């Protein structure tokens, strides 16, 4: 998801308003657990930054599924196989925002996918203009066969979801206006040396709070496999 959304640009301003942009390169990554290859922006710094969040999310999910005392949510989808046991619906989200001095002034145009929220929401640093949420339904299976089936299905689903995302962002959606030179840090992330994505934040919620259940829009789902037996 991140890969897709990051508009990576390296700016070269000629004066305050006109600019030229460098170009981004890509790198293919083969997934280990599922039969899938994806591309990411070829920036080690960005990849490490994202990985850090993902790693934490994964360990939180692991912890939650192992502890056994977690508040369980009803899975958003039916059981993938006959004997799969639902464990958890974890959520991870990606939020794009601008550091705005005038909060809530422009966000009438902000777009939220699937119309879940009607306007942008205020984040710590500024105004969110796009949010993506991924819901992971975690199941436990007992056999290698089932695990194999789940792997296959997870790959299929992720493929479809990414295509969904691509479809959605290419229909004249809102993106922040190109800033002037001094305003760059309000729109783009400037801490990486080789790319400048829109400002983004990864929001994790491995164990969702029950009261938030209604407000989250289901954007995507996937299943996290959990090998306990066999």
């Amino acid at each position: 998801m991140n890969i897709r959304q990051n508009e990576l640009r390296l700016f070269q301003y000629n004066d305050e308003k006109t600019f030229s942009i460098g170009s981004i390169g890509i790198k293919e990554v083969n997934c280990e657990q599922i039969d899938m290859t994806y591309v990411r922006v070829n920036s080690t710094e960005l990849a490490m930054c994202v990985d850090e969040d993902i790693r934490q999310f994964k360990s939180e999910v692991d912890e939650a599924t192992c502890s056994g005392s977690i508040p369980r949510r009803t899975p958003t989808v039916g059981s993938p196989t006959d004997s799969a046991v639902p464990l958890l619906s974890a959520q991870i989200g990606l939020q794009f925002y601008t550091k705005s001095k005038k909060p809530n002034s422009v966000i009438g145009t902000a777009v939220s996918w699937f119309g879940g929220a009607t306007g942008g929401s205020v984040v710590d640093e500024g105004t969110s203009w796009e949010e993506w949420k991924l819901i992971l339904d975690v199941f436990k299976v007992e056999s290698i066969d089932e695990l194999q089936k789940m792997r296959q299905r997870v790959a299929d689903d992720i493929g479809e979801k990414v295509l969904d995302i691509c479809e959605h962002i290419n229909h004249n959606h809102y993106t922040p206006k190109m800033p002037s030179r001094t305003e760059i840090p309000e729109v783009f992330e400037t801490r990486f040396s080789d790319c400048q994505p829109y400002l983004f934040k990864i929001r994790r919620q491995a164990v969702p709070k029950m009261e938030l259940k209604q407000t989250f829009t289901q954007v995507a789902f996937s299943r996290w496999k959990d090998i306990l037996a066999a």
Partner: protein
Amino acid sequence: MDEEYAMYKKYIRFFAVRMVQSLIQARLGDEVESKCSPYSVNTMDWFNMRVDELGEISAYLKSNIKNYPPTSTLTLEFLLYTPSGQCLPLEAWILSCSEGSDDCSRSELYHEMSTLLRSVIVSARMTPMHRLYVKKQNLESFVIMYRVFENDISSDFGKGKKTRKIGELSSKFGNISLDLHYRTSMHFEEPEIAPLTPVEDEEETKDLEKTVVDESLETKVETRAVSECIPIADAKKRKASGSVESATSGGSSASREAAPRFVLGQSTSSEDSRHSDLQNSYDDDHKPSLADLRNHSFPFVNLLQSAYNPANGTKKNASTTCLNSPKAAEEAPTVEKVAESFRAAKIDEVVIEEDEEEELPLDSMELSEDSFVHFNQPSDFGGAPSLGNELGDYLKQLKMAPEMSEPGEIDICKMDLKTELEKINAQTANFNNFLRHVNSFSDE
């Protein structure tokens, strides 16, 4: 206005080229990696995206799509092709540009196209075809081919066909949209196999728009190894019989031979262009490689070769164009090389054979590899110091040996040529040393 329209046309052309390049490259099975680069005057990339171009794809695209925006649509289709001649259309990417002047004041078209291009690159890896087939391409099982043409009459993608509008961008001059159709049920169906039988194909000359390029995107190291090891036998077969029956021959040769047939089969316009390629093969630098592209299944090997070795590459391109034989042209260089060494080895072996023939009867009547090797050394070079009077005996022995020639030859063919060559080289070195030694004596 005219200037703007020219710019719009340019955008579309550059977008189409990059889209086609990145989609095809994503299906090669090779790992793609390109570097992020900060802005610099020298390295301006269109749409802020680094997309390397492969010359053969560019040349093919150039010859098939003349107009930008395309008159109706630009369709890029991917097909799965098996050595047995079955063909399964898997995906079609359709870029269309509607005419008309909307009251669209958006000026972000360039950036939107940039985003769309990135989406294309991302979604290229998410379709079932990519996940199921791209990395598993192999001469023995299947390869992926592509074709580009200027209309939207794409193939049938079966029951579970899915359609997506990857992007729709509006501009002052009309809407640009990119649709993706893809197959989800991967079963061969009868009608798709039928048109592939080679006989009836020659007649389908009507469809001028369609040109088919066969594109086997074989990239795995192991497969490479196959294509490098097998050619000797294949080449021999080809030389002997002219054409190879796809059913009986090995998988690799079958697909190499069958692919061109497919080209002819799908549309005869490729035939036409092949002819024109032939005629122009000397004055147009693009044509030879294009012809190669159509005549064999491994165009990129050829490209690589010409890239690393320009002189050789062009020469070989020209020659394959002239030959216009179904023999895989990319393969030709390797085959040639191997064949050369093969031939050289042969000559050497013949020399040895003679020695062997006369030596063997003396010692043992059995032809074993060991004895063969064993006898070479004293007789051939090592034995040289004791020439002199023995020359007469040597000649006698030569005369005595005729009946051994046949079995001897057969065994030699079965020998491990490489190790034999090494031995010969070692012996040559010995002999040279000996000569030097003798010369030094004579000098004294």
